[in-house]
């Protein structure tokens, strides 16, 4: 009986029911927008209607207590209409210009900064870390919070040459945009998996496990008469893919896990085509609760970029203009053999021209 009533495959609710009347009316008929101040946008419709957006940063991990408070603010200032952005910011959608200031004041009181628009640093796209994931080489939320505390002025101001997008991921699965961000902070393991031979045959399919390794480091083997695997440690680059497919391949390691820093990726097709992020700091040890070395490294890169890039130049575009040697020089980051690619298409990254600055 009860089972018969069970609804499935209904899909997400139709978004139309959540659109404000001004949006329904001017849907697809917006003429232009302006950003009168950080965190505030006005979109002007062909009809002349004006929609004001107030954007606030969040920690992404939200208690229902906070969500209800946002709902209350929306009721007070914008007839209950709000949305989230693709970078975890909340946006209040106002029709009354005079509501902007009081809304901002309330958000400020609640501790949510208004900003993230235009040439600013928006919220960091990030992942679970020690709050939820079994693979994480570091925490996510804590590192992100520590970095954003320092970059806060760049969130509430629009004082950079261009948008600067930061992403964080706690392991090589890179659940987010780490592979294509202006600055990326990436957790990584640095030890081969420890094999739990006892439980391996019960928990994992050996052929799947063997084929999961990108470098072919895992081979079938027997352990005390039972089927298991062995790892050629010299071939392991600690990607953790074996651990993803098999819990008996423990990759986490409190002593050697930590963080790497990458720069120069982008997603948009504006000016330069999309680019991957490139390694700049291979390793910084985990130093909770505030990861000061990581914060310092990110702030340093932001500062050097802010000082040297031209208007509209994203981090990767700026570095392409000045050249990587100059980037390493200006930031004072040492260049090591780890920076030189040695994966599948490594040869494509070697410098194959004499065009160098001397």
């Amino acid at each position, binding site marked *: 009986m009860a089972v018969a009533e069970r*609804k499935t*495959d*209904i*899909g*997400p*609710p139709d*978004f139309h029911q*959540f659109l404000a009347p001004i*949006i329904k009316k001017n*849907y697809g008929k*917006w003429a*232009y927008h302006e950003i009168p101040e950080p965190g505030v946008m006005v*979109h002007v419709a062909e009809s002349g209607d004006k929609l004001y957006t107030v954007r606030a940063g*969040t920690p992404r991990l*939200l*208690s*229902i*207590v906070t969500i*209800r408070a*946002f*709902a209350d603010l*929306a009721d007070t200032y914008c007839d*209950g*209409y*709000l*949305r*989230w952005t*693709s970078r*975890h910011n909340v946006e209040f959608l106002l029709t009354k210009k005079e509501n902007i200031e009081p809304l901002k004041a309330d958000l400020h009181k609640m501790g949510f*900064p208004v900003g993230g628009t235009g040439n600013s640093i928006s919220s960091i796209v990030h*992942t679970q870390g*020690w709050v*939820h994931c*079994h*693979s994480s080489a570091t*925490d996510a*939320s*804590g590192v992100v*919070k520590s970095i954003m505390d320092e970059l*806060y002025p760049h*969130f509430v101001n629009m004082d950079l040459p261009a948008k600067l997008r930061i992403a964080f991921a706690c392991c*090589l699965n*890179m*659940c987010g*945009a780490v*592979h*294509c961000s202006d600055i990326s902070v990436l957790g990584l393991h640095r030890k081969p998996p420890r094999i739990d031979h006892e439980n391996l045959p019960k928990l994992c399919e050996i052929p799947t496990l063997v*084929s999961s390794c990108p470098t072919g480091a895992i081979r079938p083997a027997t352990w005390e008469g039972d089927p298991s695997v062995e790892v050629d440690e010299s071939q392991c680059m600690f*990607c953790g893919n074996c651990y993803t497919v098999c819990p008996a391949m423990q990759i*986490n390691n*409190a*002593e050697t896990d930590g963080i790497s820093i990458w720069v120069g990726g982008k*997603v*948009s097709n*504006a000016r*330069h085509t*999309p680019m991957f992020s490139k390694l700049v700091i291979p390793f910084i040890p*985990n130093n909770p*609760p505030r990861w000061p070395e990581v914060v310092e490294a990110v702030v340093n890169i932001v500062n050097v970029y802010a000082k040297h890039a031209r208007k*509209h130049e994203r981090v990767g575009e700026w570095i392409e203009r000045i050249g990587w040697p100059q980037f390493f020089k200006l930031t004072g980051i040492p260049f090591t053999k780890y920076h030189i690619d040695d994966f599948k298409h490594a040869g494509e990254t070697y410098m194959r021209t004499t065009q160098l600055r001397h």
Partner: protein
Amino acid sequence: MSEKKRATPLLDELKKGPWPSFVREIEKSAETNAMARDTLGQVERSYEDKISHWKHGGLVGVMGYGGGIIGRYSDLPEEYPEVAAFHTYRVNQPSGWFYTSDILRTLCDIWERHGSGLTNMHGSTGDIIFLGSKTEELEPCFRDLTEHGFDLGGSGSDVRTPSACVGPARCEWACYDTLDACNDITHTYQDELHRPAFPYKFKFKFSGCPNDCVASIARSDMSVIGVWKDNIQIDQEKVREYAANGTDIEHEVCQMCPTQCMAWDGTKLTIDNANCVKCMHCINVMPKALRPGKERGATILIGAKAPIIGGALLATVFVPFLEMKPPYDDIKELAEAIWDFWGEYGKNRERVGEFIQRVGLGNFLEEIGLDPIPEMVAHPRTNPYIFFEDELEEEEDA
């Protein structure tokens, strides 16, 4: 239930500073919710030990679905019994992450009844994440959700929850209705979304223009990016206004155009539209003066992914321009042709982008019935290792 609030000196450090604190968020829920309380405890413990205390999930889920729930268990269940099981729901968000205060309260009420009271707004794929449920609550919570109009998103080797930029709801540059396309595709593929039957995950993302505000070109197996075919619309009066207000049109606009197809003589901006690659830069800088053309549609790109395991991939152009009108048959046909071929020959855990590289783009196109065109490549091959197969076949036939 762990009643006592434990001391969390390390996490307390993360309540300091101007950026809103996730620790405070957990604490807010912890005031009334024991799971949130044990979350705080276990995370503090991770901060001490510098290691995750979560274990793999195993097969948990709701009846009849193969995805939508990520199973999770504590490796310290005796110390943090309330989070011994701590699964997440991926609740499929409405297109464009639009809400009303009412619907948000409805969601909060459901999550108050069944879980930790902690969420992610949103997960990286776009779902509303309900963070931390006990195994026995999975099915009741699911019922509560569907009764209020929500369903689960994807996980595992299925269609993943599609997402879309704000599009025509607020953005003047949307070249097609991203929200509708996302909603339509999501509803069309409910079965593929809930019952994993692919070699690996398959993600759709919809951006209204080449700015790509949902990062689809980097993060989706099928990336649909709005674009126009005709001329950029110019309001010369407004261009002059920008110039008067301090925009250095020569340096900020013309010289930054990737194809150098613009010229500014101090009073008039000319664009050689045949050489414009629709990068958006000039429009981005002068939104009042320039607008995308009127003949609008989308470019379809296939196969982006994160690095695991063959290395990260950006998506590849498959269709330079497609009109985007409901019921979006062209896109669906393309997706289904891809699934048929990849579904049959893709290896376990091989994303479609990696599969294409393995079988070769040329062969892949042939199999899914798309003609090769030069727009699909940055440049033709540089190596002379050509498989002249037709030749062989012809002659074998003869």
